[in-house]
């Protein structure tokens, strides 16, 4: 099944890095980690995200789409990036996530992608 590994960024790590992007050391570790994901057949997709200031909320549940600057909820923690991985079950996904957390030097969360 597929899992989303979301990378939790916060104001602290943004302050430490200047702009919230990965440092050179982190970037190198992430590259190694990605390489391993591909070699071991877990890789599906991954990406780093722009900061909360670059996000735009869109709500088209009403009559007309409403476009608003920024995420709906401003909070100290935000989604900094993600991996989508393929893993047979949660224990494997957690082991991968723990290596991913080490590589990007951030807290991560593991979410199952529901299967149809």
């Amino acid at each position, binding site marked *: *099944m597929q*899992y989303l590994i979301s990378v939790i960024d916060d104001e602290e790590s943004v302050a430490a890095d200047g702009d919230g992007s990965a440092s050179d050391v982190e970037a190198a570790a992430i590259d190694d980690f990605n390489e391993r994901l591909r070699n071991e057949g877990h890789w599906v997709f991954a990406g780093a995200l722009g900061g909360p200031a670059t996000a735009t909320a869109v709500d088209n549940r009403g009559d007309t789409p409403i476009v608003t600057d920024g995420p709906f909820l401003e909070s100290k923690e935000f989604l900094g990036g993600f991996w989508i991985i393929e*893993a*047979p*079950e*949660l*224990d494997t*996904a*957690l082991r991968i996530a723990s290596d991913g957390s080490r590589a990007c030097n951030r807290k991560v969360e*593991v979410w*199952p992608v*529901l*299967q*149809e």
Partner: protein
Amino acid sequence: MAGAAGVNDVEDAIVRAHRDEWARLVASTARRFGSLDIAEEASSEAFATAVERWRAEGIPPNPAGWLSTTATRRAIDLIRRENKRDSKHREAMMIVDDEPHRSVGVIDDDRLRLIFICCHPALAMESRVALTLRMVGGLTVAEIARALLVQESAVARRITRAKTKIRQAGIPFRVPTAKDLPERLSGVLAVLFLIFNEGYLATGADTPAMRDDLTAEAIRLVRLVRTLLPADGEVAGLLAMMLLIEARRPARVSSSGELITIDEQDRAAWSRTLIAEGHSLVRERLAAGTAPGRYQILAAINAVHTSARDARDTDWRQVLALYDQLASLDPSPVVALNRAIAVAEVDGPHAALAIVDGLEGTLSEYHAFHATRADLLRRLGRATDARESYDRAIRLCGNAAETRYLLCRRDESAVRPPASEPIRSTRPHEEASP
């Protein structure tokens, strides 16, 4: 089968089968049908059918086999019904584990898989407790609610939430790999210890001081884990510790509902059988010659206490040496607090108070910290300070019998001069870190 069996015989047979076979039945059904939900429902219905049929037709020659066949049939019915309701589910529901059993270096038993899935670290602790009691222990939702003093609906919610997470997040039904096993097993033991502790010193102002059903269930579950992992030292240690604590239960609360500390307990009321079994497990671990983990050390501490015929004969140097060993393994403040109690006996209350005062920052919300401090202050003749600490302990204490004990000590400390009596902590040498 000739005629109907006696009602009592049938009831005995059902109770015995439930005790011996429930976990195995749930576990094997869960593996075969890939669903805890179906396993739980099919197993309870198999027992319900047994009550009816065994009464009418007699107890089958092989009750376990009968229950297994009945549960399997029931599980297949449930799957058919699911399929009619939602054909999309068909494939998911039919994940039948037809892989041959692979050996993973430890005993590969369905019940062990069941225990590990119920105590998975990705589940909330309260869900792990409820799920383990339901799936492995076979307690009903109502029984669990009564034991944990929460609403039935809350227990049902915890179990449902856990089962949904297991299904949707893909928590595997298997014994962890050899590499992960020690850590995962220590997670399982933590759940069982929590169940025991909740029964042993129940929280809630108007609750009985101890709930035997929970301590008994915890011991039964650890015995099961020990059957499955007989070579594991920490499993043996946890069982020994529980037995040695349980052995003192008859002497722990006075007829007026007040906690009696170990130094004042009537040692003749302790259970010799449980103590003998606990001591024999501790000896077995000592003979193994491997470095002990925390539960083995705690068991050894309890063995020292239960070896003394009189509180005054307690080998406190041995207790302190064991706490030194425990503290090097687990430098937590709660261990340091319990160690300080042994220090008070070996080096006097002054030395102990210095250690306890150093823990103020981290343990200021823990009632046992204030109770221990109060007792040390009392022994040093600082009555006013002692009283203040008793007051803080009473405010933080969750157990009715313990509160009564603390109130009593507080009032005594106001009128009595310090005596050279042994220290009283409300939970002496029994509790590991919360």
